[in-house]
């Protein structure tokens, strides 16, 4: 995988794991208070980051920067 795609992909993957862990931390702390929407917000960010990562992978493969095995 070319570095042009590897670095952003690694950063995105690390961010996804961080935000997911953050949501778990908020889940343990917020006790479901109505005004505390931190879990929902963190998980929304998680979904957006995952979508960006997937699009990055598809783009990388389309332009030949990533060569999935078996093809």
């Amino acid at each position, binding site marked *: 995988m070319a570095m042009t795609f590897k670095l952003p992909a690694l950063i995105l993957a690390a961010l996804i794991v961080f935000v997911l862990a953050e*949501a*778990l931390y908020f*889940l343990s702390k917020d006790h479901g208070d*109505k005004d505390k929407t931190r879990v929902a917000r963190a998980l929304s960010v998680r*979904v957006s980051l*995952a979508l960006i990562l*997937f699009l990055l992978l598809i783009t990388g493969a389309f332009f030949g920067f990533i060569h999935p095995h*078996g093809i």
Partner: protein
Amino acid sequence: MSQTPSNYFLPDPSPWPIVAVASVFSILFGAALAVNGLFPGGIFIVLGFALFSYLLFSWFGDVVRENMAGLYNERVDSSFRQGMIWFITSEVFFFLTFFGALWYLRNVSADWLTGKGYLAGTHEVLYNQFFSVWPRTGPGLKEEFTPMKAWGVPAFNTIVLLTSGATITWAHWGLKAENRKLLIRGLIATIFLGLLFVTLQAWEYQEAYQQLNLTLKSGVYGSTFYILTGFHGMHVTVGAIMLAAILGRSFKGHFTPENHFAFEAVAWYWHFVDVVWLGLFIFVYML
């Protein structure tokens, strides 16, 4: 039952721990018989799983009833949240073990077998015809297979799970906004997408066995492919069952914007399963 505001709620004596032991014993006893080819093994396994399902339904039912009766205070709530963290920690290490095994096989043991590192002698003495390339069965196995391609079903399944992450988040915000219709629609969509994912994965396995000759016997690639994707598929199945339970509770109006730990725990679990799949898509299917 007794409870004071500052103490833990003390439930009545419960039969469920004993039923749990009986069901697990039945499953393991049946498995021990089955792997030795003895007849009643399968029956014990089926009975064990049936008892285990009954146990989960009944025990969680008791917990829901106690919760709805207002018997749980903040300390009990905290203990549920801590329990969730321990459960997830065990899940993280469970998957890390399998990802770690894949990394070790591809990056450490393959080097030794090709003559690098301090165990390079293995190459000279045993496998001097071995060269490292992935995917492959490993040394000594001759049977040909075609590896699973990333595009096609796996990429489509990634879109399915990503979409399910969006629909469960949609339901989450619906719950926070006291919009029960949104909550229920989001949950139904998520369960549907989860079941679609599992169905497509089953179809993918069938293709792998019949068209690609990719089986559990396809050496180290086949083993890691099926154990990683198989356990993930099992988690999606369990997650969909948990979501169905949450959907049932949502129909009954159990959740409020202030009190919905069960929903948030299951939603988080679903996001976790989604993230694990992204890891699988990259490390098992793409690289």
